């Protein structure tokens, strides 16, 4: 059942952690135009990761252009003043490299991993993208269709694929997190040339981005090259981030979703503090306690002992503004969703009432420590973590202090987080049922 986890949730797992003993070294500086630059030197393999994180995601969209940030990510592979349609990826692949990008509610991330002698190529490509990207009508039309297929493939033609969309629209009422990053096709159809130009002007400016170069580099040379390729890109207007404050969830929002599934599922969602806050780490530990590893609470209780579920998962959506914890269980054949929901609640209740033994918390911390090492074992991962720490967590050094924040959480704080943020009286509850159970 490994494939049961849907992509949208899987890609939103909690941010990586960090160990003090294995600090990631880096240098950082700002260019005059406001571009923040982070360099990480590691000569173990002759490769280099070049990446740019723009502080723009679907929460920066207007309500009639939902999905625009992600659509825009697709468009920014189309070319530039000096790069024709389709040439962007060709330059990278001809150099023996790989490239990709991804978008979340909060940021958009582009990267290339290249042989280290092609560092300058990576800088040229990313600076072209930042300076004067260019898209023709064929590109716009094609990518709009591609994004529609992406939506169908990931969300519409997958069992339980709509979970994130259904949860977000109930968990938020005023904040733009209420719509998914993939957006809605009618909005993309409605987008016009003015929208593209304005979005680019507003968000794709050096003062709204961080450039990370990680790998087999000489920082001094690299710094000079960065200046040459990015120094002349004009600073843009100050980017204003959305200020909508979502009022607390009061009460239970309960719904039934009929989907093309065989096994019913229970989804619960709780509003949690923003990523990077002290409370976030305690909340994330509650989720890890519930479903990280075979000996985690939900796995043992629901899958092994009671055999009520074939799959359980508890995730934190590590959003920049207050996010969500989502708990998800797929019922074993013949198990009723009400019974499954009760079993999930009972595990939560145990934590709230009895707390967690020191040994169990130590286990979670041991897992985090290993994860941190594995997560920083490749330069592409390090680049991503550095960019994320700078953009989302309040500073690059968070890459080295995040693990400590997890390790500092006490058993009492964990229990308190379970009480404060996982109230069964204030949450979204969705029952996913097979279409055949729909009343005509």
């Amino acid at each position, binding site marked *: *059942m490994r494939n049961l986890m849907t992509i949208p949730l899987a890609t939103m797992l909690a941010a990586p952690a960090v160990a003090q003993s294995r600090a990631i070294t880096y240098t950082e500086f700002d260019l005059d135009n406001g571009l923040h630059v982070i360099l990480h030197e590691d000569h173990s393999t002759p490769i280099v990761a070049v990446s740019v994180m723009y502080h723009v995601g679907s929460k920066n969209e207007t309500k009639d252009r939902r999905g625009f940030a992600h659509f825009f990510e697709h468009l920014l592979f189309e070319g530039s003043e000096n790069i024709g349609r389709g040439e962007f990826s060709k330059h990278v692949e001809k150099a*023996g490299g790989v490239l990709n990008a991804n978008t979340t509610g909060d940021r958009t991330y582009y990267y290339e*991993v290249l042989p280290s002698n092609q560092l*300058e190529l990576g800088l040229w490509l990313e600076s072209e993208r930042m300076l004067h990207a260019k898209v023709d009508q*064929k590109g716009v039309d094609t990518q709009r269709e591609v994004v529609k297929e992406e939506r169908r493939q990931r969300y519409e033609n997958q069992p339980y694929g709509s979970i994130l969309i259904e949860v977000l629209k109930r968990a938020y009422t005023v904040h733009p997190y209420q719509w998914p990053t993939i957006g809605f096709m009618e909005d993309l159809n409605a987008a016009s040339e003015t929208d593209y130009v304005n979005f680019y002007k507003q968000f794709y400016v050096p003062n709204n981005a961080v450039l990370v170069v990680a790998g087999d580099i000489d920082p001094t040379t690299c710094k000079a090259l960065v200046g040459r390729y990015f120094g002349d890109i004009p600073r843009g207007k100050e980017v204003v981030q959305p200020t909508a404050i979502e009022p607390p969830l009061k009460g239970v929002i309960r719904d039934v979703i009929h989907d093309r599934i065989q096994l019913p599922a229970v989804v619960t969602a709780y509003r949690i503090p923003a990523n990077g806050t002290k409370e976030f780490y305690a909340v994330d530990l509650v989720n890890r306690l519930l479903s990280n*590893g075979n000996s985690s609470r939900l796995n043992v209780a629901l899958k092994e002992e009671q055999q009520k579920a074939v799959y359980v998962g508890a995730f934190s959506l590590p959003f920049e503004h207050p996010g969500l914890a989502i708990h998800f269980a797929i019922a074993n054949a013949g198990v009723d969703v009400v019974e499954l929901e009760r079993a999930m609640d009972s595990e939560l209740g145990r934590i709230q009432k009895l707390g967690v033994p020191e*040994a169990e918390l130590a286990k979670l911390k041991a897992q985090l420590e290993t994860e941190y090492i594995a997560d920083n074992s490749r330069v592409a991962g390090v680049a991503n973590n550095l960019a994320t720490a700078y953009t989302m967590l309040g500073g690059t050094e968070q890459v080295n202090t995040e693990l400590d924040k997890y390790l500092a959480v006490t058993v009492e704080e964990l229990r308190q987080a379970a009480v404060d943020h996982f109230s069964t009286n204030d949450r979204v509850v969705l029952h996913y049922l097979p279409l055949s159970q729909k009343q005509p």
Partner: protein
Amino acid sequence: MNRGTPSDRSTRIGVLLAVGLLAPVLMNAQIDRSAPPKPGPAPAVDLGEHHTFTLKNGFRVIVVENHKLPMVNVQVRFDIPPIVQGEKAGYIDFLGDLLASGTATRTKAQMDEQVDQLGATLAATNDGLYASSLKKNLPALMTLVQDVVTGPTFQETEFEKVRTRTRSAIQQRKEEPDAIAEVVGRAVTYGRVHPYGEVMTERTLESISTKHIKAYYDLFFRPEKGYLVFVGDITEKEAKDLAQEHFGGWRPDRPVTSMNDDGSESMEGLGKVRIMPKLATPGGVRRVFVVDRPGSPQSVVRVGFPLNLQPRDIRALSAQVLNTILGGGVFNARLMQNLREDKGWTYGAYSTMESDRFNGHFQASVSVRTAVTDSAVAEIIKELERLRNEPVSDEELDLAKRYMAGSFARGLEDPRTVARFALNTYLNELAPDHYATYLERLEGITTVDVQAAAQAFLHPDQAIILVVGDLASFDVELAALSRDRSNPIMQLDENGAPWEEDITPVTDRKAEDIIEGYLKAIGGRNLVGQVKDMHRVMTVQRGDKELKVSEWFGPDGHYRSETTLGDQRTELLVHDGLRAGRTDAQGQVELTDVDLQDLQFNAVPVRESDLVGRLDRMVLAGRTEVEGKDAYKVILMTQHGTTVADYFDVATGLKVKRVEQKFMNGSNQRITTTYGDHRSVGGVQFPYRIGQTGGTLGRVQFTVTELDVNKGVLPALFTTGLPPIVEPTEFETDPDGYNGIEGQ
């Protein structure tokens, strides 16, 4: 075929995104932005090194030292040939779930707890396990690794838990298009009796017992068949000590097996173990398989065939270059550029060319919106043909080679890659310098090599096409891509077996009751019986033209239908009560035999009101579903030998679907007609929405625009225009065989 092409506007409409006039600041003389910067000197690629040694019991150990991170990865792998599992298909997959689910010294709960306490990972598979931990926890982890590999007890309770979950998983799989495509794709590529094509089903799941799993374990999990791999922050000496400590004394009893006359091996508890099945290779004609998912927004498409392609085959590397050019990971691959970047039909299109020491395969895969399903398949076939027929360009070859060289170097960032190379060298019996010479061999590959590989390993004419999607939306077009005339589309179920309708028997009523119920639902036998004549017009838009079918039903089986496309009449069909003629662009033909009898059976306003003497038999097959609604299925076997299946909605009693099998244009066709939007005319309900697939009109969804009952029809309409039959009153048989014609 190019339905769904986003836009024909290929001309650039100008700069949409260029912002500001930046020319002045770009006067920086130091950089020329107009062309990509030149690379520096290419860095050397360090393949890394490994050590190997063998324990006295035959267990081989591979060590890759890499002290960058304080972590160690451990892998145990047994060299197991694929075997046929037969009626207990799937039992091998239980091994992965059960190995770490209880040993002589630890329960599953204890094992899970200890792994997690170490912050380690430990994942068992059906041929070994993977584990990892921080270096400081490695000794403790190795104790667990040893326990899982040498001491599993295959407890019944744990087995039953896994079986329960697997039962649910098999059920759930039926709603996962990608999972269906994966399972059924292997089944149609290799065949369901091949180890790589066998499918675990609800039935085989119930035949599995711990006895099978235990026997398989005893046979194949043995030191002399095993490899122990350490990668990471460990020295050769440390690895030796750990290997010796945990596996040096492992000497399991040899299981008793016997050889059979056919060369296979039998074993107590496991039965016959056929070590090597027949090699599957491309053959036959191009065939099409479909797993139907009505209403599916996308079609999951797989085009593939089995291959005899061994990893040590000298052509294996050209085959990989070929696959990179076609669809193997690069964005500039042909499938991606064609189906995504040019057509906008998909999020991604890929291909794999899997070399395998037992039986390789090729597979192209894409998920496309339903409307372009057959077009996507046609494009994939076209790309395979193009690679066979034309050499690739130097530029494409160059990109593929440089990309592969880059991937090779990037892969070495992970020290496990070095260990994987070593393990592959042993398992696949590769030359010792296989990986050391990789880049050099890659560099030497030419466009001639690539085309030779295409001709050896791409088989568009023998391709096995699998689509998981809404069959009714593409059946006609997809059937045209099949080369199997007797069965253009083979419909399969989610387990890859021939599709059979899911029918629940009904015992409390008979077919006659359903027909009576239907007549009642549409107005009652009495009112229906009063329908003497009828005129009906139905239309549908075809491109910029209207397709129109006008029908007149007269007394005594008189019938006329005219089909027009725009102002062109494409078909005229007239039945005068005795004879019938069809006229189209090719002229007129008289309908005879079954064709005439079929027309006579069907060409009445409501056939169900008068079945007397027309049926051989009528059977209520049972209850099933039509578009998500319960329906009775009634099978009518006519006097003239044809069979049709009619479906009646359980709730409304109305007829919602008819399925007929017909032999047309040299192949068997399945014609499906659907009925909806019933409206009352003179108190009788008639369908105003009539859809059909598989007939001469292809897929159509008609709307009835006129329907008159008992308004009278002109007798002249039913003149067939057929030449009169000259019936000889007498036959004079000439003894010499002449027919009385003599002299001129």
